[in-house]
């Protein structure tokens, strides 16, 4: 049987390292990863993989290459690049800058520009069998209603991240000679097994505002689902679809969905309940939960903050504006492709089953600033 080798990008990222761990367990001969700096970041990855139960023998599959996805030939030497192209049979492209506050051109340079370089690699490969791309459901931007997995429609975007991911998907759809499958994830909240938070994103920033008593109000509809995703489920799903049931040309929505989510109102209530549970200091402060308001009221408050030029409040509103408009949109992500090709292979958990653990982790790790050991998985 001919060897298969995986090239995975973004393996130091919040989701990429889970997928790296999953991929090592598959039948790849080697797993190539690209790192800008060889030593320091890999120590963190190694520690994570060992916690996930991987043995030293398994980790030997990992071949680290010093490079940069935004550069031509990935910043590798000619020999390294040719060697990589020769050996690589599978590409899982997870690398992206997920910072919502980037200027659009900067987001494009990394997310679109980086993908162009990976596409070039794929085209140079002797025999590319699968190209998996990690995307986001929020390529739907400001669209409302049911979003089908095959939809890729531009009706405006809330931040530069989702626009750059949209443009990347458009680019990938043009690559007819490469077998591409796209995995769109919603917002990761934590690991359902332990509450561990692999990366603190916009949702955690908003939760932190609430925790610190700085969230004045939340625009949205109380009955809308608060779409929060379990990283364990998400990466198990992506791993299965990419490594075990790859279908070229398909896009998958990997989400919790309304049946496994809190409503926005419940999300805010439960958050307060768990803050109370996990922090006596918080309990003593008597911080009120932020009310859910319509967008007009939120914008009136925002207008007042701008006129008053209150710098702290302006910063808070800025953080919220990168994603809160989504809370006012009534959007449902169709999962027909995922349901069909994933089936019940990977079990989804309702967020209520692990959200308390996530909040506990957030508080005890001081919102990601210090190490906090979760219970053993």
């Amino acid at each position, binding site marked *: 049987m001919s060897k298969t080798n995986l090239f995975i990008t973004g393996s130091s990222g919040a989701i990429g390292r889970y997928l790296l761990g999953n991929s090592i367990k598959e039948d790849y001969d080697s797993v190539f990863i690209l790192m800008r700096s060889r030593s320091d970041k890999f120590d963190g990855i190694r520690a994570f993989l060992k916690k996930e139960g991987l043995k030293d023998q398994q980790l030997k599959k990992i071949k680290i290459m010093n490079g940069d996805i935004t550069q031509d030939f990935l910043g590798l030497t000619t020999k390294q690049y040719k060697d990589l192209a020769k050996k690589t049979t599978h590409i899982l492209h997870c690398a992206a800058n997920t910072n919502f506050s980037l200027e659009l051109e900067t987001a494009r340079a990394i997310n679109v520009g980086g993908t162009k370089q990976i596409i070039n690699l794929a085209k140079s490969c002797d025999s590319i069998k699968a190209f998996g791309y990690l995307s986001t459901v929020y390529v739907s931007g400001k669209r409302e209603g049911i979003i089908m997995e095959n939809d890729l429609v531009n009706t405006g975007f809330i931040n530069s991240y989702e626009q750059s991911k949209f443009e990347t998907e458009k680019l990938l759809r043009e690559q007819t000679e490469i077998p591409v499958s796209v995995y769109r994830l919603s917002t990761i909240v934590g690991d359902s097994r332990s509450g561990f938070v692999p990366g603190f994103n916009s949702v955690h920033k908003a939760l932190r505002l609430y925790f610190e008593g*700085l969230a004045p*109000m939340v625009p949205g509809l109380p009955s809308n689902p608060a779409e929060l995703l379990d990283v364990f489920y998400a990466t198990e799903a992506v791993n299965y679809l990419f490594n075990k049931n790859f279908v070229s040309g398909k896009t998958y929505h990997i989400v919790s969905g309304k049946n496994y989510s809190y409503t926005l109102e419940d999300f805010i209530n439960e958050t307060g309940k768990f803050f109370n549970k996990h922090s006596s200091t918080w309990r003593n402060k008597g911080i009120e939960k932020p009310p859910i308001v*319509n967008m007009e009221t939120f914008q009136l408050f925002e207008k*007042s903050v701008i006129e008053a030029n209150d710098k702290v409040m302006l910063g808070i509103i800025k953080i919220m504006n990168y994603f809160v408009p989504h809370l006012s949109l009534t959007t449902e992500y169709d999962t027909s492709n995922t349901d069909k090709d994933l089936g019940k292979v990977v079990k989804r958990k309702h967020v209520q089953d692990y959200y308390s653990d996530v909040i506990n982790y957030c508080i005890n790790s001081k919102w990601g600033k210090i190490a906090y050991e979760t219970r053993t998985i």
Partner: protein
Amino acid sequence: MKRINSTVGIKALSYYLPNNFKTLEELEKDKKLISKAKVLKSFGFNKVRIAKNETHVDLAKKAVKDLLKTNDIDPLEIDIVIFAGAMNHSFMVYEKNYEIKNSLIKNPMDLFKYPASKLQYELGISNASVIGLGQQGCSSLFSAIRVGRDILVSEDNVKNVLCVSSDVFPDNAIREVVYNVLSDGAGAVLLTKDSNVNKIIVISQITKGYYWDGDLRQNELIASYFPTARNIISDTLKKADLKIEDIDILIPHNVSMRSWDILLELIGFPKKRFYGQNIAKNGHSIGADNIINLKDAIDSKIIKKDDLVLMFNFGFGVNWSCIILEH
């Protein structure tokens, strides 16, 4: 919970505002504002009242004198005087242009001269005992009404309680606090047992001591103001077995109209039943706003007999307070 059946009510009310006023532009010129005048104007303010050669005790006296005269009340019938001040120096008797001076340390007796006693004497309210009430910020008069009501309910021999609030800003002080512009002023109410007007149905108060340093926690205060206000209004209505739709008129404290636009949306109360007429005219008269607004609304017949009136107030400390009356 059933509506509390109390017959304690506000039999009479009055206020005094200094005739002297300044516009926002004049305050800005005098460097007495933090924000730009045009910003505060867009928030709904226009003028403030400033005491000239009058102390807070002078203002209080005028408010009480007017109350007694207009309502033909014999001062000897008042059993208790509760003086409520928002600011720390409101609990002292001092001359105009008050500043904390080292001379106070030289003569410690100056630290024990109280407005409540001075009013009791100078207004001939000789049968009344006095109470000073503070640490409530702009909610001080509401707390005075609460204490007065409770005394009337619990002590048979007490028939009339006079509650007075009066504050004058020091001459050298900035007249803006958290985007609100402040006036000097005094308000007075006479609470009686068996009142047939302005019956107090319910009084509620929430204190959140975490925000005791309003300066340090200003942004957290701003964030907490709206949800806590909504909650106390909701809880107060529930206590009274009422819904927001049952309220005929909302009498505010004069924080910015902009913040009221937001809060009215939050609580689902129509602006046409909100008495905001004095915000631009008077600014925020610290503890006296609600009484000034209530009296003006009654005098202009906006409030009719049997109307349910909700009064809301917020004071540093911090405290959110709510009173529901039946006129």
